[in-house]
């Protein structure tokens, strides 16, 4: 557990670091009627890994899409609150402009371009870049160094690669845009525990060595809290708790409801209730 201790220490120092992304009390409505987020606020510090935790339908993906402005193409709208990136509102930016500013999303469920080869997939990630072939090739090499498996599979069509390779391909593709912040949506989905561990290790390395800030949405609370510095817990569209990863890990409620261990070391199914303590905005 030494590595997690150091991660937690880094988290404490990151708390004072510069805020890269600020989400202030946003409300999101789909199709003009379906209210999904009912006031979510969070900060992503520069150089940190921030986790967004919660069960199905809690609003993790919607939060990420609200930030990357992918909501519009799904008929969703931010109706209240504001999202600031480096102090400037992102409301009027297209996803393309956001990528150019350094915010890129890795979507839930991989979404690789099936008919393109792995290398072509990676290269599409550099679509918005204007800094020349040499720089792009350098980054391609960097991605292959982090994900050696992708180098082996570079000529195969993405649809014939395994789920883990597709997840790596999706992360690598996002890296190719030379991002400052990656919004990483559920990288563990449908992967074997060992592979999840492998991918999180690489994400952590990217964060430490390349200085990429990461906002991570995850259902796998256990893994996420081991790699993240700071965490927010979402429940039906609201942030119900936040704190440094180490605090959250030790919190008895988190232990019971999200990590599946009660005080006596056993999960009590008898008193299952959901945890609803609202964060107070106007304190």
């Amino acid at each position: 557990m030494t590595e997690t201790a150091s991660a937690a220490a880094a988290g404490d120092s990151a708390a004072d670091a510069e805020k890269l992304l600020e989400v202030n009390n946003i409300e999101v409505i789909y199709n003009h009627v379906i209210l999904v987020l009912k006031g979510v606020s969070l900060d992503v510090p520069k150089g940190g890994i921030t986790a967004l935790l919660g069960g199905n339908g809690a609003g993790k993906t919607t939060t990420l899409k609200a930030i990357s402005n992918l909501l519009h193409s799904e008929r969703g709208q931010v109706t209240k609150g504001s999202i600031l990136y480096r102090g400037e509102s992102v409301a009027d930016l297209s996803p393309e402009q956001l990528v150019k500013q350094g915010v890129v999303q890795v979507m839930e469920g991989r979404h690789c371009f099936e008919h393109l080869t792995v290398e072509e997939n990676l290269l599409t990630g550099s679509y918005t870049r204007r800094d020349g072939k040499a720089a792009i090739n350098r980054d391609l090499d960097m991605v292959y160094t982090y994900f050696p498996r992708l180098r082996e599979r570079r000529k195969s069509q993405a649809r014939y690669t395994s789920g883990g390779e597709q997840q790596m391909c999706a992360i690598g593709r996002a890296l190719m845009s030379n991002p400052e912040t990656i919004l990483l949506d559920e990288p563990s989905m449908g992967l074997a525990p060992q592979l999840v561990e492998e991918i999180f290790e690489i994400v952590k390395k990217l964060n430490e060595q390349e200085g990429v800030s990461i906002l991570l949405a995850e259902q796998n609370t256990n893994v996420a809290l081991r790699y993240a510095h700071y965490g927010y817990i979402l429940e039906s569209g609201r942030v119900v708790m936040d704190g440094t990863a180490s605090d959250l890990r030790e919190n008895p409620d988190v232990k019971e409801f999200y990590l599946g261990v009660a005080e006596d070391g056993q999960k009590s199914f008898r008193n299952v209730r959901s945890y609803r303590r609202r964060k107070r905005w106007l304190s």
Partner: protein
Amino acid sequence: MSANFLYTIEVILNGLMAGVMYSLVALGFVLIFKASGIFNYAQGVMALFAAMTLVGIQQGQVPFAHLINAAFGTKIHHFGWTVPALMAILLTLVVMILFAILVERIVLKHLVNQEPIILFMATIGLAYFMEGMGDLMWGSELKTLDIGLPSGGSLWLEEATVGWGAEGSGFYGLFIDKLDIVATGVALALVISLTLFSQYTKTGRALRAVADDHQAALSVGISLRKIWVIVWAIAGFVAMVAGIMWGAKSGVQFSLSLIALKALPVLILGGFTSIPGAIIGGLIIGVGEKLFEFSIGPMIGGATENWFAYVLALVFLIFRPQGLFGDKIIERV
């Protein structure tokens, strides 16, 4: 060689040439379908519109002449100049690109993430709009399109092959229309350049990415709106080429837009998502209908060319609905 055998060869060759013409139309459908999942009903009308515009520009017609004359009591029809063919083609291309931009601005932008059937309905509306627009701009009379493409039988080929038949067999050499030969060359060049473009350029790669997954393309910063303009502009270009070839062959008038119907069986055969499929599908239909007409037609009273392609398409729909080269339809559960 027996005359019958030589006739068969001639029929096959002519079938191939006719097939190329079908493929040209089918190509436009495939391009748009691949990139945006839209079956573009307006493709045939786009070909007609492009051909009309080309003739109009070339002959120095005043666009909307009838409208202007009716409104202001003037009697203008022509500017009084003619534009060289190449220049007219370039100007037509500009018009088609403007059209692509307008379609994106006015129609597609508002229909993002809608069901394919809704987009399909929108293209039906677009087809009727363009048809009327074409008539309004350039008049609805039959026009001849002449941009200096060679036409008529290829005497050279006839002379070279006349010796193949036996003495007194009545065989005068293989007959192929020169226009068909040109069309083949053009189609070949078009397919090669489209393939190179989509395989080896950054924009081509982005086009294929959008065809695979709209959302993911957005997430990596590819602008769907820009890509759709590019796709519709390319489809407009292909429609123009098809319009030129068919217009030169059979004149520019309303029935030109109906060639789109002949492209449908080609698409069903080749698969909606495959560029090579569009070509090979066209060739199979072309050769198939000519051979059928030649060999079986006389037994059942002829005129089989009108329906053969559709029956063949029906057979394909029953036994291989994804077409020869289309993606296998796999339902995942």
